[in-house]
């Protein structure tokens, strides 16, 4: 309401959700392309998908789910006044994020080493659907990786502010919204994983 002094917790959360909707639709555009090209090149997509590193994909799925768990626990912890725990849990979340990105780095290096990257001679020589698959893969996963980076930074800042006490049980909208963002990153991955690694 129009009291400038009172914090509008529900308003902040509503705003965050609205923002998450926009993120969802941002990735939605790529999923739309994926769907239409899958309908056109089912065989090429399946073949290309079999070349992906299932191990990396699965490991990263587990890592992200776990990080999401810790972020959710951090929200519970702050409501129970466990400031210490919050910082540890967020630290764990960010660490998971870092490991995730490191895995991605290894995976991408391996793929680029095999000559698979947008516009590469190998893809140019292959069937058309294959190059579409990998271009979409790099764009989607790259955009997702960027979100991991942003989310990690955000949660680091939040952890620091929890440590300083500016975020506390009475006012933790920042933590809650940071965690929401992180869950969204997880959510998007939950769909990326089957679409690219297990190829539908």
């Amino acid at each position, binding site marked *: 309401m129009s009291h400038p002094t009172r914090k509008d917790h529900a308003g902040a959360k509503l*705003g965050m959700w*609205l923002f998450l909707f*926009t993120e969802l*639709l941002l990735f939605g555009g790529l999923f739309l392309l994926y769907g239409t090209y899958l309908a056109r090149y089912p065989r090429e997509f399946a073949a290309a998908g079999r070349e992906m590193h299932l191990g990396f994909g699965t490991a990263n799925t587990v890592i992200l789910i776990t990080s999401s768990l810790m972020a959710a626990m951090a929200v519970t912890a702050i409501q129970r006044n466990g400031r210490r725990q919050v910082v540890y849990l967020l630290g764990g979340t960010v660490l998971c994020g870092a490991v995730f990105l490191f895995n991605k780095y290894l995976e991408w290096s391996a793929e680029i080493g095999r000559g698979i990257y947008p516009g590469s001679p190998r893809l140019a020589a292959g069937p*058309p659907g294959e190059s579409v698959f990998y271009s979409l893969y790099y764009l989607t996963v790259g955009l997702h990786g960027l979100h991991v980076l942003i989310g990690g930074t955000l949660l680091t800042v939040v952890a620091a502010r929890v440590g300083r006490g500016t975020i506390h049980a009475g006012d933790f909208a920042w933590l809650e919204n940071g965690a929401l963002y992180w869950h969204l990153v997880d959510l998007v991955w939950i769909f990326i994983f089957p679409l690219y690694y297990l190829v539908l």
Partner: protein
Amino acid sequence: MKPTDQTPPPAASFWNDTGRSGITAWLFSTDHKRIGLLYFFSVFGFFLVGVVLGLLLRIELMAPGRTIMGPQTYNALFTVHGVVMVFLFIIPGFQGSFGNLIMPIQIGARDVAFPRLNLFSWWLYMGGAAIILTSLFTGGGPPDTGWTFYLPFSSRTGTNVSLAVFGVFIVGFSSIATGVNFVTTIHRLRAEGMTWGRLPLFVWSLYATAWVQILATPILGITLVLIIAERLLGTGLFDPSRGGDPLMYQHLFWIYSHPAVYIMILPAMGVISDIIPVFARKPIFGYKMIAFSSLAIAAAGSLVWGHHMFTSGMSDTAILVFSFLTFVVAIPSAIKVFNWVSTLYRGSISLEAPMLFSLSFILLFSIGGLTGLIQGAAATDIHVHDTQFVVGHFHYVIFGGSGFAFFAAMHYWLPKFYGRRYAEKPAIIAWALMFVGFNILYFSMIVLGLEGMPRRYYDYLPEFAPLNLLSTIGSWILAAGLVLLLVNLFRGLRSGERVGSNPWGGATLEWSIPTPPPTENFEEEPVVSHGPYDFRGAGIP
């Protein structure tokens, strides 16, 4: 107009009571009124830039062959004209300027829900605009792709497309931020008694618009990223030689850009719905239908993008579906037109500048909308697609619709913030010139399109010459009216007659607070007890 109260302007208003002074007090202010004015002057500045480019286009088309520029310049100019007008003027225009200035006051709030985000979105907007402007003078020169950036052409041209597209991307984020802010504000910050059924229709229209911004703009974002990736990384997603499909680009582009035309028109319709009752001294006819039709347009408007692709080689089934849905969106617009006209019935109508612009809005928007029906019907669109007919259609709805509503809003609301007003007679002359010039300019284009002259044509066959000349002459009349409007309005705002808190006799909340408004808007939180068009309830005879 007669000043309804003669009290001298309050000493403290949002112009001077913030403590800080100087330019930074504006550039870093989180006050919605100051941000609103920042937006107003930026979007209006870009509008003028766009107008100059439009006039240059018309001069080039005055006669066949080369008139004042070469084809490359022409192609760059219509691209930049389109980009500036669409992304820097009309999409951010209403939300940023009048939305910010008026909406929080109309719902009885002190400010928007996230004032700092609000300021940030203006900065994003300016940043994006700066990038777009930079793209004109660096790299391979201004983009020459048309505002639609169709692939594969825009991945092949050597002009500075990537940078311009990146600028548009940033502006898109600004639009998203505003949308998030407004939806939250309207949900959370309404004053006591300001029920959904008492929201002014302008607020309703902003609410519907904000949803379109939230749900459609991200698709534009990803589409623009894909153009850049196509150019810089060679992803080939829309390149047929590598399995891509150019039509998929068009789908993505129009999934955003059709709803975007409703970002442009919905707030304009809201302005009209607020102005007409005040100048007819009658409650708006069919409040609920108008509010609901705003939501209906926003929702159904997201389903029709394919009507831009009837000739593209899209499947016939899709054409069937999209043509049908296109006609469905026309229904809520028709309802609004009928309701506005019936509001006039047995009222007491005064034809001051805001009202003249509003009434001409109805006419011009109707012409634009009815030409839209020609384009929505599959058989007829085949002939007029990508001709001057389409150019005529959208100038009628964008310029004759949203643009004229913008002028109406300027005359109606700016005096509230300046405490002074323009002179009536020159305003009416300016309106008349613009109205006449506008119709000559764009009706000629509609006819040219029917005769078969394609759009984005630097040169044309001699048979199209007479109407092109006529059209160009119309553009000069329009421009003369615009100059008069500007001089009169801004001179009035600086040194015109003073106005009281409620010069027009409006019943919405912005007229209940002092002129110019204080920073806090309301001394104490208002309690709303009457509807927005209940002139008796508000104590206005």
